[in-house]
């Protein structure tokens, strides 16, 4: 067995054992922070498809997050569907809106595209705030029932911890499979060089829309989980700041590398809690300043993020080479 597989097993066991370790009275608190971390991992993995793999700067990702959350909230309140169905419907709804946004904006490039996506997220918030008949506007939706499985309603923190872990692993598996396939390579090709990608027979429109739809549906899944977990949603939760935060996670971790984005979430999200404890009351709001300083320092020391795309790629290539080498006695 390889070293890497051992490492993987150890990490998985640690993650699974975490809720069992008693932290005294603060267990709930720590589990809740970890759940947030995993939620942001899901979101940053989703955004990574558009911004990291395909190379389109998307500032409106939180729009899909909001769409997913409201889909889940409304479906629970009005129909009380089972959790699995809600997650699926939220993903489908997110994908539909992703396609609707993607198709007309595809001709834009670079900054113009970013501006349009930014406008989209603001549009979502405005819609939610103003369409009282559907979303109850600024009052928000409260009392969203927790998901229940086989008659047991989830209530404890560790229930949600495992739930988000399951979602995260599903998303992770899907993204891993897509990344190392024809579709993922087409995305990389579009990011690296659009003209060469076209000359290789890649239909830019199709693959950009696909990236958009998948990314949007993952964001909507994150939103649906958030609505079910928090049991209360409000238009202010889906403000532009959230988009920037998720983008920061990706930039910090390394655009385009899966483990980099996860590492980014693992570092930044607990940091806000740590700062909340460390900083005195009157310096509370300066923790955004510290985010900024950390980002600046990171960009100075490692401009491509913590795990740059190139390093992740060469690591992957080493494994591919080893795998081929195992099958052939001689070098292929």
């Amino acid at each position, binding site marked *: 067995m390889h070293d890497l597989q051992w490492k993987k097993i150890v990490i998985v066991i640690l993650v699974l054992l975490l809720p069992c370790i008693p932290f005294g009275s603060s267990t709930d608190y720590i589990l809740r922070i970890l759940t947030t971390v995993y939620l942001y991992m899901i979101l940053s993995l989703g955004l990574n498809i558009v911004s990291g793999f395909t190379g389109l700067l998307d500032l409106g990702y939180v729009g899909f997050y909001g769409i997913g959350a409201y889909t889940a909230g409304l479906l629970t309140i009005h129909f009380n569907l089972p959790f699995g169905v809600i997650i699926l419907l939220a993903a489908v709804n997110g994908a539909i809106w992703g396609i609707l946004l993607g198709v007309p904006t595809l*001709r834009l490039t670079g900054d113009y595209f970013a501006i349009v996506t930014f406008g989209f997220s603001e549009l979502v918030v405005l819609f939610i705030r103003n369409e009282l008949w559907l979303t109850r506007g600024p009052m928000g939706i409260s009392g969203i029932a927790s998901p229940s499985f086989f008659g047991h309603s989830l209530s404890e923190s560790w229930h949600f911890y495992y739930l988000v872990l399951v979602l995260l692993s599903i998303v992770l598996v*899907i993204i891993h*499979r*897509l990344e190392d*396939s*024809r*579709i993922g*390579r*087409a995305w*990389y*090709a579009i990011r*690296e*060089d659009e*003209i*060469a*990608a*076209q*000359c*290789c*027979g*890649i*239909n*830019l*429109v199709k693959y950009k829309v*696909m990236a958009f739809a*998948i990314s949007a549906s993952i964001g909507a899944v994150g939103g649906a989980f958030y609505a079910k977990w928090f049991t209360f949603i409000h238009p202010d939760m889906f403000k532009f700041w959230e988009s920037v935060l998720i983008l920061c996670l990706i930039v910090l971790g390394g655009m385009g590398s899966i483990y980099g984005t996860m590492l980014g979430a693992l570092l930044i999200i607990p940091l806000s809690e740590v700062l909340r404890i460390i900083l005195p009351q009157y310096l509370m709001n300066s923790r955004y300043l510290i985010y900024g300083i950390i980002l600046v320092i990171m960009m100075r020391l490692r401009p491509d993020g913590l795990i740059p*795309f*190139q390093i992740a*790629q*060469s690591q992957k*290539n*080493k494994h*591919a*080479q080893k795998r*081929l080498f195992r099958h052939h006695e001689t*070098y*292929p």
Partner: protein
Amino acid sequence: MKPILKAVHLSKNFGGLQALKAIDLEVYPQKIVGIIGPNGAGKTTLFNCLTGLYEPSGGQLYFQDQPIVPELSQHIYKSIRIASFVFGLISFFWIGFVLFYTYPQTVFKLELCLFVTFIFALRILVIKYLNHYEAWAWSLYFMFLFIDTYFTIRLFLVPIHVHALLIYIWILSFIICHGYVLTILISFETRKCFGFKMGVDRISKMGISRTFQNIRLFQNLSVIDNVKIGAHICMNSGFFSTMLRLDSHVQEEKNWEQTTLSYLRDVGLENQAFHLASSLSYGSQRLLEIARALASKPKLLLLDEPAAGMNPKESSNLISLIRKIRDSGLTIILIEHDMKVMMKLADYIYVLDHGVLIAEGSTDAIRENPKVIEAYLGPKI
């Protein structure tokens, strides 16, 4: 033997500059055709037209007797003209007719007659500019479309006793004429006119593949991934088979891993298969571009200065490689400044200068041609 690629009066303008002036080319299968000419002669522009990156301003391109550039200039213009003529003719009577039924007492007033004439003139004008794909004409056209739709609905609501049959014929003709124009509007060729570049990937699916003068590799990906992207059109696993990792997908990936390695072996890069493309030397990057172009199993290969920046040994290897590719059944069009390489390889040479085809012939004929010598060395003093 039929030519695999044929260009008829191909021309390309950039604003006032004519980059290509009425080029006629014929490329026969399993031949190496060279294109030479001084810098700025329009060689790369020709390649860009062939691969669909540029849309030619005039002329036609045929690949295996199929037009590469959709024949929008003739075909679409004609159908739009016919459709819009019908549309204009009908619309002349349309408003008067509707008004006659809806407001019978006002029909024969002078102002109304003038108004209808004005609308008619406007519509004719719109039709004229519709052919030139003017944005304002199309927007006006849509305005008319909505007005017509409104009146059609209106006509349904009016109590009809006498000419019921006539009205239904009218509505039918309305639907037919607008439907026709709308179909043209959403067709591929017209979308292309509005700036959607739909052509390039379709052309590469037809079997034309190219390399670039300034290397355009996917620098941050591994060498083998570059070749796999080149093989994109030969693979067909979609989203669901990838996500569920179906057997077909796994098998395809496995097969193509071997095939791409064999392509890399052909160009002599199999030892660097898992390195990043940016880590290769300049000559190797050129070879990798050739391997990537070959991976899509093309019928016609366009090589844009493959020997640029290579030392004599490397370029002699390249010559034998290109010969081998030709012998495996491909047709090659070659742009090259290195005359030694060109004279050794080419079966037939076209010489371009300032967008004009100044000479064509076999290598010996080109070497002796006074026009070519003049283009390269300047006129005799």
